[in-house]
């Protein structure tokens, strides 16, 4: 609710003076209604990142080489940030969306629901940039507070708009990667590019055990729920405290059990898994390179036009 209002408010301030006021007003109202409806329909789902893991398994881009996807996404994000051009950012946002939804067959409603999380942070950050404090009313929109004014100027509007587009563009690049590449492939790629062994091993273990931890927590919460452990606020708090404590003890015990099982298989202080060589496919390399060249060309063209 608050977030939807913020969206709408931010939209209003961003385009104040750029759009004719009837259009601006109806746009803001539509945005408010639309975002409320969307949140209502898609609800508030827990375990968001677990559902990403499930979606990834179904992605049609899963078979692409993880190295190409990682380089492609990171390079696109870097170009998007460095170019600082609204058109280029919009192009990146649009094309990444197309790649993910049409290429990877990630459900559109799921993609947009997932985007609301970073979007909220971006909008919150942008509000701070949008308003400047000035002693005199010199902006397009001024709010008097005591002796000074909170004003939205043309410059701050431009800065905010470009920031939104850049941030959003970079996020959609990373979403392409995380919605099409299983975690173990990403970790395998990090190992291949010689990321520190400690980080890589920790990532493997965290990825494996986070699911066990959540499953255990869920079981305990259910068992507590079945005994009215969450009937009111006070009791909920107590239940939560004791189940967290229990979870900690269980985790310790479990980690020693797991260590025993690892030792039984000759674990010797270094975690290593088999990594099969999978060759780069020419079409994948060419497609990624073509897109990146297009972005670079776009950037160069935009700079020529400006300069």
């Amino acid at each position: 609710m608050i977030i939807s209002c913020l969206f709408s408010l931010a939209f209003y301030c961003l385009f104040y003076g750029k759009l004719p006021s009837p259009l601006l007003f109806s746009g803001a109202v539509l945005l408010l209604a639309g975002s409320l409806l969307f949140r209502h329909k898609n609800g508030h789902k827990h375990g968001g990142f677990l559902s990403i893991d499930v979606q990834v398994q179904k992605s049609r881009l899963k078979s692409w080489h993880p190295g190409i996807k990682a380089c492609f996404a990171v390079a696109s994000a870097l170009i998007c940030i460095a170019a600082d051009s609204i058109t280029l950012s919009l192009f990146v946002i649009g094309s990444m969306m197309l790649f993910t939804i049409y290429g990877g067959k990630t459900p559109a409603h799921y993609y947009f629901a997932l985007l609301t999380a970073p979007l909220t942070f971006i909008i919150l950050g942008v509000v701070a940039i949008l308003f400047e404090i000035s002693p005199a009313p010199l902006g397009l929109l001024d709010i008097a507070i005591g002796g000074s004014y909170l004003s939205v100027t043309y410059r701050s509007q431009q800065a905010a708009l470009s920031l939104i587009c850049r941030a959003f563009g970079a996020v959609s690049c990373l979403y392409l990667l995380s919605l099409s590449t299983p975690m173990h492939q990403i970790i395998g790629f990090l190992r291949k590019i010689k990321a520190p062994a400690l980080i890589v091993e920790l990532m493997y273990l965290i990825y494996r055990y986070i699911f066990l931890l959540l499953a255990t927590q869920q079981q305990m919460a259910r068992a507590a729920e079945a005994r009215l452990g969450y009937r009111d606020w006070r009791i909920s708090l107590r239940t939560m405290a004791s189940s967290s404590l229990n979870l900690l003890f269980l985790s310790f015990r479990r980690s020693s059990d797991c260590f025993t099982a690892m030792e039984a298989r000759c674990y010797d202080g270094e975690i290593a898994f088999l990594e099969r060589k999978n060759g780069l496919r020419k079409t994948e390399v060419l497609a990624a390179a073509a897109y990146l060249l297009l972005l670079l060309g776009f950037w160069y063209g935009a700079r020529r036009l400006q300069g």
Partner: protein
Amino acid sequence: MNDVLLAMDKVDYSYDEGGFALSGLSLEICKGQRIAVLGNNGAGKSTFFLLCNGILKPDKGALFYGGKTIDPRKKQDLLRLRQLVGIIFQDADHQIIGSTVESEVSFGPMNLKLPAEKVAQRVDQALQAMGLAEYRHRPPHYLSGGEKKRVTIADILAMEPEVLLFDEPTAFLDPAGVRTLESLLAELYRQERALLVSTHDIDFAWRWAQRILVFHAGRLVADNTPEQIFADGPLLEQAGLRRPYLYDFTLSLQAHCGWPPDIWPKTTAEIEAYYKNKAGL
């Protein structure tokens, strides 16, 4: 005439000072044996398994493999023992650490420091043997209980052990999973490995085992054929066990239907075949 693989001589082990978890344990495990390990919870079955694999080190007594003494304090001996004696843990989630089935199964052979091609070959073989070939790229948390159990068996097979220890393998399985497990055990038996299964399922032990070890209060109280073990009433009483249903049924057949006293059927099919044969069908 039997090839002795693993042997223990008067082994003692305690988790802390004073109370013995296991004491005076002596036994020999030979090639191609099917052994069920019975006993109530806390009797020492799991401790026994962990001793076999060198995770726990005996306080007293000696450990042998293939006739040679194993010193669990020597790293080389320990690695050899752990490769040759594999444990399939009760809870598959304790054992699985890989993020895909394939990487999980490769963990053991990678620890043996084999070359990559060799590891790949062993992983393929193990996955094939457990019918997991098409699951190789799946993360383990999306597998069912029975599939996870098969993954943990593949884990151990890929290390090519001669002795396999199954810690209560049927505990988390549904009846279909148990059936699959039994046919896998039969397949492993054909490969002449020594198999030890700790279980609470008396009827399974009767059906499957050639030899039964009974643990009670940290001691190996009996080591005999199933026929001998279940004929020993006081022993069953002491260890908190019961007779298999088929054993009881055979006793009533003997009493009322002229069943010969020296034949102990392991399946109902054997009984049916006997009476059909007798009736000349």
